[in-house]
């Protein structure tokens, strides 16, 4: 008899595992209907919101106001930001996703193509947001997300090492060399390349990524190639040969070196700032390498509404009437340090010169393309840049092959 006890225990754990399976398959939404059904009198409904760690506290704050005024419950589920897009795509069709999730605007094309997001109606409030933030979340005339932050890269300058903003790339390299630090200028390249960070330098040669329509939206036609693209590729090879750009410099190395005062300049975004305590920083426009203005990508962070939400009214109410307030947007600003999307909140945040600096650079930036075709571009793009910088690829031939390969991937998809 005694022998069967461990086996019974095993059976319990087997059942636990099954429950866990049932639970994971049904969690999230599972609790929602139960909550509304069991205590309808005291309860104003429940919505589930996916957030990442940086934004958790800020959303919690806005949710508290919402809960107090409407009697609803907001359940926050903490997720890794990198996992959200995939999980959202996979779980919404099964009815198990959240009602609302945080996300980036450049997911939009993919999310709408898969039918997992619903448009939101922000009505006349659209005018109260930074125009680029609403444009970024707009597709076919419909707004699909409530923006809360605008982010872009700029030139971060250590004023102790370089008192003045450089006018051009060559100025920056000269000033950096004159400063006598280990690196004249820091820019993360890494072995796989970093086309996002290199983009402003590419645009300064007049080469974009996709053709832009008159209204600023992107058409699925590549704009990487041609004369401007080849000029940029040639410049990459020169800088790589001169040692200014180096594939051994990764994000971590670049940030650590700048924090240690090894260079007066680094090209990066507001997310780097907290790694530089004690440095006196100024934010400047990115110096142009090819003669035209160096315009980075601007990314907009916002909240998406699930197309399968069973609590659409509550979720819309929360987004449109609570997350769009100045307090909520400022709380998100404090948490993430990116300029808010709501103009009134952005004006308050701009009292900080660093935020103001990034905002000024962003005013001139291009929104990151959100068309689904963008997914096929990154990997070819980065590796080619890295190859040209390290000298393993011949610049013109390498760049042209990249354009052909991306076109091939687009045609195959």
């Amino acid at each position, binding site marked *: *008899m005694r022998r069967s006890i461990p086996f019974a225990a095993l059976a319990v754990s087997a059942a636990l595992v099954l429950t866990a399976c049932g639970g994971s398959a*049904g969690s999230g939404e599972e609790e929602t*209907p139960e909550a509304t059904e069991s205590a309808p009198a005291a309860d104003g409904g429940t919505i589930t919101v996916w957030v990442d760690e940086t934004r958790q506290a800020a959303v919690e704050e806005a949710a508290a106001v919402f809960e107090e005024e409407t009697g609803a419950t907001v359940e926050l589920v903490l997720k890794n930001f990198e996992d959200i897009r995939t999980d959202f795509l996979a779980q919404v069709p099964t009815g198990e996703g959240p009602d609302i999730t945080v996300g980036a605007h450049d997911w939009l094309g993919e999310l*709408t193509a*898969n039918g997992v997001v*619903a448009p939101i109606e922000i009505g006349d409030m659209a005018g109260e947001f930074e125009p680029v933030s609403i444009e970024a979340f707009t597709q*076919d005339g419909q707004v699909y997300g409530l923006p809360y932050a605008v982010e872009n890269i700029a030139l971060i300058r250590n004023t102790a090492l370089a008192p003045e903003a450089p006018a051009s790339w060559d100025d920056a390299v000269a000033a950096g060399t004159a400063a006598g630090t280990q690196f004249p200028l820091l820019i993360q390249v890494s072995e796989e390349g970093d086309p996002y960070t290199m983009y402003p330098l590419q645009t300064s040669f007049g080469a974009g990524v996709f053709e832009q329509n008159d209204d600023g939206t992107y058409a699925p036609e590549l704009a990487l190639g041609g004369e401007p693209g080849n000029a940029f590729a040639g410049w990459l090879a020169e800088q790589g040969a001169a040692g200014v750009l180096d594939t051994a410099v990764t994000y971590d190395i670049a940030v650590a070196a700048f924090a240690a005062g090894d260079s007066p300049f680094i090209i990066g975004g507001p997310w780097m700032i907290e790694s530089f305590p004690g440095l006196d920083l100024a934010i400047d426009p990115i110096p142009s390498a090819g003669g035209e203005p160096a315009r980075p990508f601007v990314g907009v962070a916002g909240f998406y509404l699930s197309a399968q939400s069973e609590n*659409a009214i509550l979720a*819309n109410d929360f987004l449109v009437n609570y997350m769009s307030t100045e307090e909520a947007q400022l709380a998100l600003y404090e948490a993430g340090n990116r300029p808010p999307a709501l103009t009134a909140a952005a004006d308050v945040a701009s009292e900080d010169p660093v935020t103001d600096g990034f905002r000024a650079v962003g005013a001139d930036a291009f929104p990151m393309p959100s068309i689904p075709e963008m997914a096929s571009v990154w990997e070819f793009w980065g590796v080619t840049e890295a190859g040209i910088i390290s000298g*393993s690829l011949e610049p013109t031939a390498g760049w042209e092959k990249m354009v052909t390969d991306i076109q091939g991937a687009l045609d195959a998809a």
Partner: protein
Amino acid sequence: MSSQLTTQRVEPEPAESPRTSHARTWSAGFLAKLALLAVVDAFGVYVVLAAWNERSFGILWSMVALLAAANYVYFSKRALALKYILPGLAFLLVFQIYVVFYTGYVAFTNYGDGHNSTKEQAVEALLVQNERRVEGSESFPLVVVSDGGELGFAIVDADGDVEAGTADRPLAGVDDASVDDGVITAVPGFELVDRQGVLERQDEVTALRVPVSDDAEDGSIRTTDARTGYVYESVLVYDEAADTMTDTTTGVVYAPNDDGQFEAEDGSTLAVGWRVVVGFDNFVTAFGDARYAQPFVAILLWTFAFAILSVLTTFLLGLFLAITFNEDRLRGRRIYRTLMILPYALPPFLAALIWSGLLNRRFGFINEVLLGGAEIPWLTDPTLAKLAILGVNLWLGFPYMFLICTGALQAIPGDVLEAAQIDGAGRVRTWRSVVLPLLLVATAPLLISSFAFNFNNFTLVYMLTGGGPRFADASVPLGHTDILITMVYSISGIDGNAPRNYGLASALSIVIFVIVGTISAIAFRRTRSLEDIN
């Protein structure tokens, strides 16, 4: 030892003996079993109820079946063997069979970007995406009302008058309605639905369209937050009977095609598609896409080379160390052995990440400190990158081999070696004819499983080189150190660098499974000949 076990197992066989069954006595053990099964049943019932709530009938019926089986097995005296097997079977069912069948199913569908959900949801998404707010139209303060259970909207129009209507009755002015500070507080002929009521019928409220007038061209009022209404008009209309979508602005009719999309006669399709079974299409793509054919051969060869060399190098080093530290004359063997196992204690993905930092061309510890600033491209030169992967895997893997070899060596009975000595065999001869065969009998199955593991050693490749450096001549983002599993990861788009294609990924993983399975089966068959030595 083994013979003792056998006799014990045989013992309960005369089950028809007059001994009372375990299941029938009220011993302490029986009560314990009863309590544990009660807990199991309670969990089972909870899962069944949760599944019922979710309408997940697959989970529900499997759980009911499992529960019935568990109760029968543990209370019946006829199911003795199953008492031991059932927990394992349950695990097998959940973790293996289900996953295998689901992967198999997905491999025959076009599940991926643009074909993410069911047709029903795709239709719903298309309709919602193609419903536009009438340009320049106003927003109206709105309340939800009901007329004998039928929901409707009441709005305050531009002139400040109240209008109300339902899905069948277009908006019409209502006299004597009261408005307090822009909020409607009473509408004669209708009941106001309070917030609680709205929340209970959210789906109905968001789906409700109240026509502005008898003319459908004028659009209809809808709301997303039950506080404000807007005038919308639909661009796409779904005809359920004909199963077609019609674009009201152009008049183009879209009908579903075999790929799970709505297609017009000119071949243009609507954006959102759904999952359909596509037969062997994914397998055809896996082998038929010209862009993949050439890198596929290189990657297949490297995968075999990587897996075989990894097993070989780690085994040889582990064996060598095991023999060395098995020598009685060596002092401090325990300390050495503990140190040897250290790499085994680190999580492999962390170790691979650290190594990729150590091997950085310019700032890595190995180049900068050990080699005095030699900028050796460990991870970016095709040959060196392969060597680096094998080297790091050797570092990661030899402790395991060291452990199993030490165990196997110590398990070889001393009398066998003594007998060899008496027979006049020298050290080398003893080693070759006695120790090595006995060692291989014990370790061969582990070597095969190690081969299977390294064949799919995703973590190491992904964390150390990311598959790079890239093939300079290929038109797809694959590299010299990519193995089959990282290739699947890359071309299926799960890493976010290509449009996702779960169907293709599943098809490719089935191909990999067939390769690994075949090799393992052959290898296991061959190891049987080793066992004849016993």
